[in-house]
């Protein structure tokens, strides 16, 4: 029973891959999407069976976790917003021909800076000042983190794929160090049970809720929507968007045409970092309002997957982020209510990506050959 909801939303990213050339029915994006969903769903069904749960029970738990309450919807929306921010940044860098696989590290850098700024703010800071400060700190830190890779590329020609990837480990490590050292960000240790995490942010630095007291949805949802829309308009309708595209397609020709190639590349990578850093700041400024060791919960990598699947379309970024955001929360409930490991949802998600990616690979390869 588990495939149906996937069928509804999964073809959206695949649709974007539609090229005008006539392809055999099997290679049609819709067919690819449907096939991927069916295959991934079948595996999911197998995993559910393997966990000894009835499909109907698992399905109910999944749906409950996704849409069952305003709490479920709210936290799903928060997850989706975080993913959308990272994927939006990825899309911008990708437009300039760069692949930012450093979302996780940039997220960590952003979270770290947000926690550092947030915890130093006085307790009575007004929200109008505290929230922007925390978010801007995350943006700047994430942008700077990606900027390291950008500079290395500009100066030394180092591939940003490698540098951003490696900076992930540094970022994750830094968070871990910071929350374990009292001299850094760890909350004052009062007993042996004091968790290795930062002190909570003051009231004025916490992201305001937007869906009433029942729902944990915060302002980051609005910010993510605005960011995606503005980015979409900029990429599609402004000179900057066209320049980025030109650089992405042909750096050599763009340089010849007088475009500031290095600045555009570095800038787009820094933007990607800033978006991920913003997402990191948001994760710190959402309940429980602390920076903890695994606060990123792999969002950096999931955001990368969303960006890859969306293939440059911000509409698809929104759609895939929502899908993944809701599925993640559904998966948590799957574990809590039905005893099926939440990782099975992750497996299904990953398989989905794998199938779609494999199909995309064959279509582009054949396209080039003809």
């Amino acid at each position, binding site marked *: 029973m588990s495939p149906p909801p996937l069928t509804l939303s999964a073809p959206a990213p695949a649709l974007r891959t539609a090229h005008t050339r006539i392809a055999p029915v099997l290679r049609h994006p819709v067919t690819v999407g449907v096939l991927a969903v069916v295959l991934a769903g079948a595996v999911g069904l197998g995993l559910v069976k393997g966990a000894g749960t009835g499909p109907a029970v698992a399905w109910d738990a999944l749906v409950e976790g996704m849409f069952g309450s305003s709490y479920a919807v709210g936290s799903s929306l928060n997850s989706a917003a975080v993913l959308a921010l990272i994927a939006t940044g990825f899309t911008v860098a990708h437009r300039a021909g760069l692949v930012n696989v450093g979302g996780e590290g940039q997220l960590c850098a952003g979270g770290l800076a947000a926690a550092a700024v947030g915890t130093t703010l006085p307790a009575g800071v007004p929200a109008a000042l505290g929230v922007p400060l925390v978010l801007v700190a995350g943006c700047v830190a994430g942008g700077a983190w990606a900027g390291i890779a950008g500079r290395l590329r500009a100066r030394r020609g180092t591939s940003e794929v490698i540098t951003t990837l490696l900076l992930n480990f540094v970022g994750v490590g830094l968070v871990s160090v910071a929350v374990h050292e009292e001299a850094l960000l760890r909350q004052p240790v009062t007993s042996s049970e004091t968790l290795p995490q930062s002190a909570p942010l003051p009231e004025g630095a916490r992201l305001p809720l937007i869906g009433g007291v029942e729902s944990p949805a915060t302002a980051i949802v609005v910010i993510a929507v605005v960011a995606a829309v503005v980015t979409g308009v900029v990429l599609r309708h402004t*000179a900057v968007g066209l320049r980025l*595209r030109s650089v992405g397609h042909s750096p050599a020709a763009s340089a*010849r045409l007088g475009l500031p190639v290095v600045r555009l590349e570095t800038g787009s990578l820094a933007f990607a970092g800033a978006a991920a850093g913003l997402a990191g700041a948001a994760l710190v400024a959402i309940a429980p309002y602390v920076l903890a060791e695994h606060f990123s919960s792999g969002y950096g990598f999931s955001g990368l997957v969303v960006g890859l699947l969306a293939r440059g379309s911000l509409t698809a970024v929104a759609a895939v982020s929502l899908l993944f955001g809701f599925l993640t929360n559904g998966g948590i409930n799957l574990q809590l209510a039905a005893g099926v490991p939440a990782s099975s949802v992750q497996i299904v998600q990953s398989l989905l990506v794998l199938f779609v990616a494999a199909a995309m690979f064959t279509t582009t390869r054949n396209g080039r050959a003809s």
Partner: protein
Amino acid sequence: MNTAAPALEISGLTKSFGTTRALEEVDLVVESGTVHCVLGENGAGKSTLCHVVGGSVAPDAGGLRLYGSPYAPRRPADALAAGIAMVHQHFSLVPTLTVGENMRLLRLRDLPRRVARVREEYGLELDLDARVSELPVGVRQRTEIVKALLREPRLLVLDEPTGVLGPAGTDALLATCRRIAESGHAVVLVTHKLGEVARAGDAATVLRGGRVSGGGPLAELPPERLVPLMIGRPAGSLDAGLAGTIGLAADGDSPEAGASGSGKTRAGGPEPAGRALAVGTAEPGGRAEPGGKAAARVTQALRLRDVSVRRADGTSALDEVSLDVGYGEIVGIAGVEGNGQSELMALLGGSLAPVAGRVELDGRDLTRAAPRERSRAGLGVVPEDRLHEGCVPQLRVADNLFLGRLDRFRRHGVLLDRRAMDRAADSVLTGHGIRADGPGALMSSLSGGNQQKVVLARELALDPLICLAAAQPTRGLDIGAVGAVHSRIRDAAAAGTGVLVVSSELSELLVLCDRITVAYRGKLLGPVDPAEPDARERIGALMLGARASRPGPENTGHTPEALR
């Protein structure tokens, strides 16, 4: 020659791509022991024909027979198995490997014996230990041909083999073709240059718009009759520059041609006329400029002083080169490729910095300026590699035209005014006679000639335009486009712009330029005045490194690449 059945017999071959008919009812007979030329402008269907013969494209209708037996390849491997070897325009060599390693990739048995046989039979020498990336283009092509011959093919198909070769390389290649044919095999030479046909071919088939427009033994088909078949209008209507580019005017008597020239070449009648025309159009331009070159102005449109460029491996790509291009003057740079021309263009374009020397535009130092500053200062560059540097094929024509000047098209302050861009692009398309499916068409959907016209239009639109540097401006273009590009260049010069043309087509330079220098091993030799009667011979000699004062050395047998 030895068998009764022809080497290759094609009958009623038809192939469509979508709605366009690439080939329609094409019949072609290649006798064994001959060099058969397939002629046609770009887009006439030559490449498709090659692909069908090579097995990479399946025909819609029609049949092929190879030495009498039916032949229907489904994939390139079938063609190889049937004894057909193809040499494509773009090489299939691994640049980081040596020549010998590239040959070992073919996985042939008794490779040394085969190499020795090719060397003996065709006189094709190769240094097996040389790294391909370090070889000049001519030698790479020789490697490619040797690779094809190692399989001992019965039929060798060469697709536009001379596009990348200088005159000497072309002559060596044509001599090789003749030798292969004389050994009893057959060669199909696909080309759009008539000069080559006249020198090497036994018979020809002319394609126009996917159909066979004529053909027969070349003894009965002088170039005057081939041209109308190719372009659909009489040869007399051709501008001399065009004639030069397709090789009509090329008499092939460059000194190194002695070995292969043979009696088939004719001293070109159109040539003197060509020179007169070039001089006639370019000269007034020079004088129209107030205080032009006669007044010996202190500044030049473009001035290079003792410029040196090193390659990555430490060798000298440009060695203390000095060059002046006056206002309204067209200066040509001839030479076998790989003698520093690409580095010179990269230097002018701003993608390469010299280790020493100065580049001045209109008296202003641009040695280390970014490409953007160069464009602003008025240096237009038409790069050699159109698709990788000249334009962005994935973007629209309008985008390509105005990418450097997007600030002019604004809407509500921040948005891009696409409609205004399209209107402006539309007028450029009309003004330059560019055939495109509107300004919104993708650059990649344009033919090579129209792409080049877009690039040229963009660079010519610079304001101010002090100097235009164009590399291989007409490579791969059909005759109509060549004419358009040439007249644009002449117009620019007439308006006082200094023009630098780098070309491997000597005939083109001879009709276009006021002055020709020759690139040889990173030096510029000459200059030679193209109006002088022995200009061609002197340039030919300089291409081999002779001193400007001395006539060409007696050079038999080996190509200039072999000298390197």
